[in-house]
């Protein structure tokens, strides 16, 4: 798969180009151009800010893991355009099901990024209320959440049949190239197609499932699999924030018009490790990393903004904001603690449960014996 096979609207040097009709299908180049034109200079500045903040957050969290403050971190480094560009196209009312690396989507959603920290610091499993920003919890069982997104979309369909007015038009699920091999991810396509569910599958193909390259998951482009399920697809340059936005806008309009599910493959690159426990030097080359470094999504957008006359003070200001965010995350992390141990007995069930209460009482009795010893 080469870059020429993906929809690209910004070259790696940040120059605007017209959509190639051969890769814009099923959209027309005119449609893609119109969606891209929605992004004003102000929007592009906002996108740049989201991307830089995401990277600053990610860098800080990586450092905090190295300092022993986090048990693990999953870097989003290099995937900022795919995440921010797509998320900017998703209405606030539409529910998003992320996998576990979508820090850039969280940023656009308005989630306080610090809420992600407890999950990796080990103070709780989920950090935020999914309903607060229509951003579901991270899911760590690969691909399991793709079915939840489809079911949620089936719920929207049922709401409409009942005459319940939803503000949401669609559900969006993010998943990766490794997940495409999971049975659940394939069953999700079966169920979405069968129900004609209003769901957008947003695949970030970052080329590596930990140490296994995409070619091991599939011998032909992953997005082509959608065809076999009767789901139309677009393949987009995932390091091009404008193309990611335009493709997602097209897909969501397709879904809102009642045409059923859609599938986007964003070709991007995991510039960092899979997690902080990983060592990419064991399985990929410096040359490959250098190739993608030259396609850095943030540098690409910055080049465009500079060419459009955005002043240096803007970039300096965003950098400063990123540093402030990092400091804020650092302070939050160091102060973040788990509650009393007995909180483990909370919320196992939503209604009273005798077995849980029996063990809670046994724990209390154990503590009492300790006090009397």
């Amino acid at each position, binding site marked *: 798969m080469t870059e020429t096979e993906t929809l690209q609207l910004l070259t790696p040097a940040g120059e605007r180009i017209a959509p190639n009709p051969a890769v814009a299908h099923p959209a027309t180049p005119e449609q893609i151009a119109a969606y891209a034109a929605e992004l004003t200079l102000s929007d592009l500045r906002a996108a740049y800010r989201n991307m830089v903040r995401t990277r600053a957050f990610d860098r800080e969290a990586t450092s905090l893991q190295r300092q022993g403050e986090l048990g693990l971190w999953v870097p989003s480094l290099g995937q900022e355009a795919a995440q921010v560009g797509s998320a900017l196209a998703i209405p606030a009312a539409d*529910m998003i099901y992320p996998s576990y690396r979508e820090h850039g989507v969280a940023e656009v959603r308005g989630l306080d990024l610090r809420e992600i920290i407890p999950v990796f610091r080990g103070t*709780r*499993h*989920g950090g935020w*209320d*999914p*309903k607060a920003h229509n951003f*579901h*919890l991270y*899911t760590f*069982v690969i691909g*399991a*959440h*793709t*079915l*939840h*997104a*489809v*079911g*949620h*979309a*089936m*719920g*929207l369909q*049922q*709401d409409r*049949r*009942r005459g319940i007015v939803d503000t949401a038009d669609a*559900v969006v699920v993010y998943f990766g190239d490794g997940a495409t091999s999971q*049975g*659940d991810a394939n*069953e*999700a396509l*079966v*169920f979405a197609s*069968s129900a004609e569910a209003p769901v957008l599958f947003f695949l970030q193909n970052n080329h590596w499932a930990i140490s296994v390259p995409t070619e091991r998951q599939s011998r032909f482009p992953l997005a082509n699999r959608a065809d076999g399920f009767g789901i139309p697809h677009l393949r987009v340059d995932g390091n091009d924030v404008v193309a990611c936005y335009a493709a997602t806008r097209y897909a969501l309009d397709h879904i809102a018009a009642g045409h059923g599910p859609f599938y986007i493959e964003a070709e991007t690159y995991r510039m960092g490790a899979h997690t902080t426990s990983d060592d990419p030097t064991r399985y990929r080359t410096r040359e490959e990393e250098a190739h993608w470094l030259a396609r850095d999504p943030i540098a690409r957008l910055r080049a465009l903004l500079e060419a459009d006359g955005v002043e240096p003070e803007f970039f300096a200001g965003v950098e400063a904001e990123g540093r402030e965010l990092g400091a804020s995350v650092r302070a939050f992390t160091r102060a973040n603690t788990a509650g009393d141990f007995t909180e483990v007995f*909370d*919320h*196992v*069930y*939503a*209604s*009273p*449960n*005798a*077995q*849980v209460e*029996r063990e809670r009482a046994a724990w209390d009795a154990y503590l009492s014996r300790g006090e009397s010893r």
Partner: protein
Amino acid sequence: MNAPVVAHDRKGPAPHARPGTTAAGAAPSSGAAHASLPMAQAINAGLRAAMTRDESVILMGEDIGPLGGVFRVTDGLQRDFGADRVRDTPLAESGIVGTAIGMALAGYRPVVEIQFDGFIFPAFNQITTQLAKLTYRSQGDVRVPVVIRVPYGGDIGAIEHHSESPEALFAHTAGLRVVTPSTSADAFTMIQQAIASPDPVLFFEPKARYWSRGEIPATVDLTPDGVVAGLSRARTVQHGTDVTLAGYGPTVATLTKAAAAAAEDGISAEVLDLRSISPLDFDAVIESVRRTGRLVVAHEAAEYYGPGAELAARVAEACFYDLEAPVLRVGGFHTPYPANRHEHDHLPNLDRILDAIDRSLDY
């Protein structure tokens, strides 16, 4: 994969019958009682009542629409509630449960039918890593009130994978409620309470008892407390003084027969229908064993690591000075479920239970 066809009872509830039930959260009220129904139709009546009461109740599964399910438990429901509420799904169990979770997250109360016990395993991941944990991992922010109906157990002369009892695998998973009725009355009541519960519920239906008839009650307690109690408490089938016989689902009828046979020998057996496997009603069993001093537990699931093992450990701890004999178990063997010509001996049949009663009394 087709099951024996359920004898169709034309005297069952009319298509638009409204069994007397109470609205969720309301106090019990009286309604018209039904005549005797086979358990399969009692569950059907319970589903019908829940769907009538709450538009968010959606049935999902394989062949549950025009066919009415291979055991006809959903017979007539698609006709009366429509294909959007009684959904024939693609043939993929993980997909069914996974999308049911998503529907629950969108505000619905899906009731999933897994066609047979042995076919639940493709969904095992969704049930144990997702369904069971979502409330916990969200600190209670989200609820997933999904009910998974599973025809289970043997003694129907079926081929491989159609007679299994995997309940312990789910009882071992925190976050799930695991229940099983043994009578039409409980089936009618408990399916409605399972649907009303804010927790995910594995609802195991003893398929060998689908055709056993019984009265269904005029009212169902769907208050929050009533739901918790209905999905947690054992039922005393008959009182006795010499030995406690505990079981659930398909074995309750066998235990009752064993108690009758033992009575002819002058042995007074107390019979407990556990009804819930998670949570187990330890208090009810302990209270009984403190009086009788003896406990025999029976289930079709394997003895090793089964619910009986858990009960034995708890009873040994709580009733150490009350026990006249060790707790004995009668269950399936540590073998795959055998070919059906052997299933009689594999199951906790009357003879094996009476043998255990004798061993307990002779200790």
